[in-house]
């Protein structure tokens, strides 16, 4: 029971911070806590949430994926490219984009699991390669990269109960990944590898395949996020993923996942994402200039981690 409590602490505190942000926001503008506004915020959070979900698996391994920005962009651009091929292309656009993400993730996983190049370095390189590929593909200017109606449907429209479809997709991704982490052997292996890979290997876990699997899931969710962002902004464009790498990492860590791997709960990432999005929206409601937003954003992350994210003292 003590172990469970210590894991829950960051999530409880992060939830507390959400309440604080909501309270401050409502004093500035009462519509900040209206259901419409909150649903809108959750819709925005869904994009970050989906992108962060796969990244969390990679961070649980104790690794990191710096190629996230251009994986998002590549997934989006390839999906819109396939959509131009005709009615069949339009139908297959979203799976095609996710397939690209899968391929990128497998390459990243291979680089770490088999070549044993630190993931931070290898994904730094694949990010540059992806950027080069996309510049080459777009010819340096923006080609026809319109979102398909289906992409707009899943990203902007509402269907049941007036809840945005993006939120439903985020919920599905959340349930699938949370169940996978908690109940399947694969999920257990992820935590085992994050704690000590050599021990997992000696216990008979095929650690390399698990690692590639995590990176692959990350590629797929990043590309899915890219496709949905395309639907949200009606087109895919270069640099669309740039704004998501750091908030994703921050959300995961604020949710109590250790950046060293092996420790964390999926629900924490969901809380972290909501916290980050609400914080950003509160600062924009306050009409804070960009400079002030960056400073507060950074200070809040440091302060929160000082409250509950401190490491152990090294004594021997």
């Amino acid at each position: 029971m003590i172990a469970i409590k210590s894991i829950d602490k960051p999530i409880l505190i992060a939830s507390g911070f959400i309440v604080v942000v909501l309270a401050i926001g409502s004093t500035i503008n009462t519509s900040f806590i209206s259901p419409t506004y909150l649903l809108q915020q959750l819709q925005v959070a869904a994009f970050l949430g989906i992108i962060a979900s796969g990244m969390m698996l990679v961070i649980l391994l104790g690794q990191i994926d710096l190629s996230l920005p251009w994986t998002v962009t590549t997934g989006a651009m390839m999906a819109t490219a396939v959509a131009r091929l005709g009615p069949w292309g339009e139908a297959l656009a979203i799976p095609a984009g996710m397939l690209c993400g899968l391929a990128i993730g497998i390459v990243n996983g291979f680089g770490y699991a088999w070549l044993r190049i630190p993931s931070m370095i290898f994904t730094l390189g694949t990010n540059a390669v992806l950027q080069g590929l996309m510049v080459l593909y777009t010819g340096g200017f923006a080609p026809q990269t319109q979102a398909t109606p289906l992409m707009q449907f899943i990203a902007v429209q509402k269907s049941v109960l007036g809840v945005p479809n993006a939120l439903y997709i985020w919920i599905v991704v959340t349930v699938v990944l949370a169940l996978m982490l908690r109940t399947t052997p694969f999920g257990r292996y992820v935590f085992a590898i994050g704690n000590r890979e050599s021990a997992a290997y000696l216990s008979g876990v095929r650690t390399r395949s698990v690692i590639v699997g995590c990176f692959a899931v990350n590629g797929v969710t990043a590309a899915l996020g890219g496709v949905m962002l395309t639907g949200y902004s009606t087109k895919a464009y270069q640099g669309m993923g740039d704004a998501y790498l750091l908030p994703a990492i921050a959300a995961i860590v604020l949710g109590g996942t250790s950046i060293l791997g092996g420790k964390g709960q999926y629900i924490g990432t969901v809380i972290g994402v909501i916290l980050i999005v609400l914080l950003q929206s509160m600062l924009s409601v306050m009409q804070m200039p960009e400079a002030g937003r960056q400073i507060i954003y950074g200070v809040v992350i440091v302060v929160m981690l000082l409250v509950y994210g401190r490491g152990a003292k090294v004594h021997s």
Partner: protein
Amino acid sequence: MKARDARLRLAQNTGPLLALGVFVAMFGLFLYEHPRQISVNVLTTASNKAVVLALVAMAQTVPVLTRGLDLSVGSVMTMATCISSVLVNGSPGHIAFGVVVVLLAGLAAGAVNGAIVVIGRIQPIIATLATGAVYFGIALLLRPSPGGDVSEGLSNALTYATFGIPTTFLLLVGVLVFLWLPFRRSIVGRGCYAAGSAEGAAYMSGVAVGRSKIVAYMFAGLLSALAGLLLSLVALSGEASAPQGGAYTLNSIAAVVVGGSSLFGGSGGMVGSVIGAFVLRTIGDLLFVFDAPPLWQPLFEGVILLGAVSLGASRVLRIKNRLELFT
């Protein structure tokens, strides 16, 4: 005994030497293919372009040696550029004051990073990610839109050649000889290496691990600020550009790895990082003189970068025991 010493030194410096070989080959090719006569001007331009990245890479090296990472180097550099575009102009006294303020700001930023990492015990990667946002916010506060005024006199003095050698290159060598070499031999400097290779053992042996780490981040802040100062002198203005800062941060990590330092701490050094930065900067120049189609350039650069960092960091080539792979 002497021969064994030499062999040991050679084994310790394979990474930097390999990078040096690659750089000499690339730069030779660049000079050979260069359309114009090789002149001091060509060298000065090449040096000015490379030195800013080299300084940021040197900044990154020290935290990496302690098994940390500083993701705020690009932001500190941007902040320094913006401070410089506000303060480094006017009378000589005013300029000197501005330069001192820029460097002190870098030092202070580094001290904050170090304190959060050591006293706050937050993982460096996430701590510097957050403080980087703060420093970038300060940069934006000082310079909401690009511009400003940087002393042309100082710029002319530093971005041309002295005695036929690019001044920026001399500055780089000066930093290496007068800051890095004494630091590496000092107690604190050795403490950085010790903390990076085995923190617990270092602590038990009485090394002031915490102090070494804080100084490492301060060193990083100081050198990033110096890089920002030079950048403002080359551009003669300041700009709070997030993409530029981010690119410098990522390239600094790449340069450190290409230069043979281990991301797992405890081995490597600044000289290698400088060479690594030169290698990365020469890639673009090479593609230019070989008339690579502009559209293909980012892809070529990406592929070469991926190849270079992979070679620099691949452990598969070095391990003796299969189990070592997994630790």
